[in-house]
């Protein structure tokens, strides 16, 4: 069809990869390229840029510009929301990192009954609907109707409608992210260095800190960035386990929902702008880290 140029095949045979690709260019390629660019422009690029634009533009009768945007973001309710989001995300990421590195080591370096089941189950949290995550935690930890309700009632520990619940919901939805990054790297680097260290008299702890951790360092960082981005942006699960009222369990994402629902669009766009910036930042960090990972092998 498009191969009307003389000898595209000969050229391809002498230098398969590059020439072969080049010979494929034709009207069809141009059509596909246009379709893809338009699709992504209308579905993603334009809407996202509009949100950024609206954060700075005068919205709903309120003035635009950097000053008013800053004011909306330093409003006490917004500050509370972002602070809560950061606190919750911090603890969720810390928990997921420790748990993730530990379970990755166990799954890769050890054999035990139930190992395969565990490695499949580990992936489950990311496929569960956020609402179901919230519901599951409520049905387990709510003092009134949870399985552990009575126990929690007697100890006076509140999980649902309080920060521990938010942390659990956030940790749940981002649980596999560190593990998914660390496991392939652990498998790739093998056990030789660790065995050598141990044969030279290093104990388990020393082997981990001096040998294993430096080898998986970038995978851990990568997983942490992904977890943090996911944690900061979590909405569905958090909505169910939190009261979500102003100064009372309202995270950044819940703030956006509440403000938008209260026709205070300017505040919603301002908070959304911050989250968009954080998301893009995470993407950039992830893209910068990627090559490092492939270099190592």
């Amino acid at each position, binding site marked *: 069809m498009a191969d009307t140029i003389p000898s595209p095949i000969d050229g391809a045979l002498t230098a398969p990869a590059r020439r072969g690709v080049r010979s494929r260019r034709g009207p069809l390629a141009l059509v596909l390229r246009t379709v893809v660019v338009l699709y992504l422009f209308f579905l993603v690029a334009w809407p*996202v840029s509009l949100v950024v634009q609206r954060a700075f533009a005068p919205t709903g009768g309120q003035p635009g510009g950097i000053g008013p945007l800053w004011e909306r973001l330093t409003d006490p309710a917004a500050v509370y929301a972002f602070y809560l989001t950061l606190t919750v995300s911090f603890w969720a990421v810390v928990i997921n990192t420790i748990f993730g590195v530990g379970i990755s080591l166990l799954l890769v370096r050890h054999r035990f009954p139930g190992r395969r089941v565990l490695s499949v189950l580990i992936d489950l949290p990311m496929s569960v609907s956020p609402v179901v995550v919230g519901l599951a935690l409520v049905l387990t930890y709510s003092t009134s109707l949870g399985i552990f309700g009575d126990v929690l009632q007697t100890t006076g520990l509140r999980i649902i409608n309080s920060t521990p619940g938010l942390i659990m919901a956030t940790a749940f939805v981002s649980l596999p992210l560190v593990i998914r990054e660390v496991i392939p790297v652990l498998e790739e680097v093998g056990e030789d260095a660790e065995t050598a260290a141990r044969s030279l008299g290093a104990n388990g702890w020393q082997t981990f800190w001096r040998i294993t951790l430096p080898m998986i360092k970038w995978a851990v960082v990568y997983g942490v960035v992904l977890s943090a981005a996911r944690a900061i942006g979590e909405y569905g699960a958090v909505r169910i386990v939190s009261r979500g009222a102003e100064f009372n369990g309202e995270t950044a994402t819940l703030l956006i929902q509440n403000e938008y629902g209260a026709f205070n669009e300017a505040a919603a766009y301002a908070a959304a702008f911050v989250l968009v910036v954080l998301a893009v930042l995470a993407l950039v960090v992830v893209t910068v880290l990627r090559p490092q990972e492939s270099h190592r092998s």
Partner: protein
Amino acid sequence: MNGITTARPDAAPAAPSRPRRRARRSTLTRASGVGLGLAVVWFSLLVLIPLAAVVIAAAEGGWDTFVGTITDGDTAAAIRLTVVEAALVTVVNVVMGTVIAWVLVRDTFPGKRVLEVVIDLPFALPTIVAGLVLLSLYGPDSPVGVNLVNSRQGIFLALLFVTLPFVVRTVQPVLLELDADVEEAAASLGASRATTFRRIILPALAPAITAGASLAFARAISEFGSLVLIAGNQPRNTEVASLKILKYIEGDQQAAAASVAVLLLLVAVLVIVALDLISRRVAARG
């Protein structure tokens, strides 16, 4: 954010990299045994017991109550709408995702790297922000005069947005590794480009497309955040399963919420099992 790395059916965590010398036997030391115990306890408290609680809550009323709940008019309509929309979105993703992956791998043009970032944005953005993002172009103040709030088209669009990267990111690596030689050979033997695509490229991509499609379908079925602002939540019209669950929870009908939730859980488990099977088949083929 989940899928930037989800999209690797070939990297199932279970694949043992070392020859199994003493399979079946435990190699745990005492310290790692304690570690495993702690990890399993935490995992149970966080994930397994809560998910079991959902199943228990759904089962408590017995089979008839469960069936009664999910076949009740509004709920059945919500489930049907969710499945239909998710299926449609998956079909569009299979076609567009493959085309996008194709363009990203085989085409070169200025600005291609920007597209790479644009594709990951839907995963990176919080779902509530995704809803707001779409509202800014396709909502009440739309600069192009299109208002999809409270409509099924709005749901479709939101699902299309959040599932965008799945097929692209599963197909892309496979396409990158696909040997151009085979295509050239087919072409030199007289195969048309359509035939080459159908007989050579498509079979090689099929497992990746299937994996991406399953992920997209599962995500679409369970999507919540991006739909909250856009769907409008009208019973029997624009109410999807996840928002129906929310309504049940807010109405203190936890058992009914759990019944619908169990359906969503089932889909999630099925997809995980399917992906595991696909990745093992691919691994077995080498």
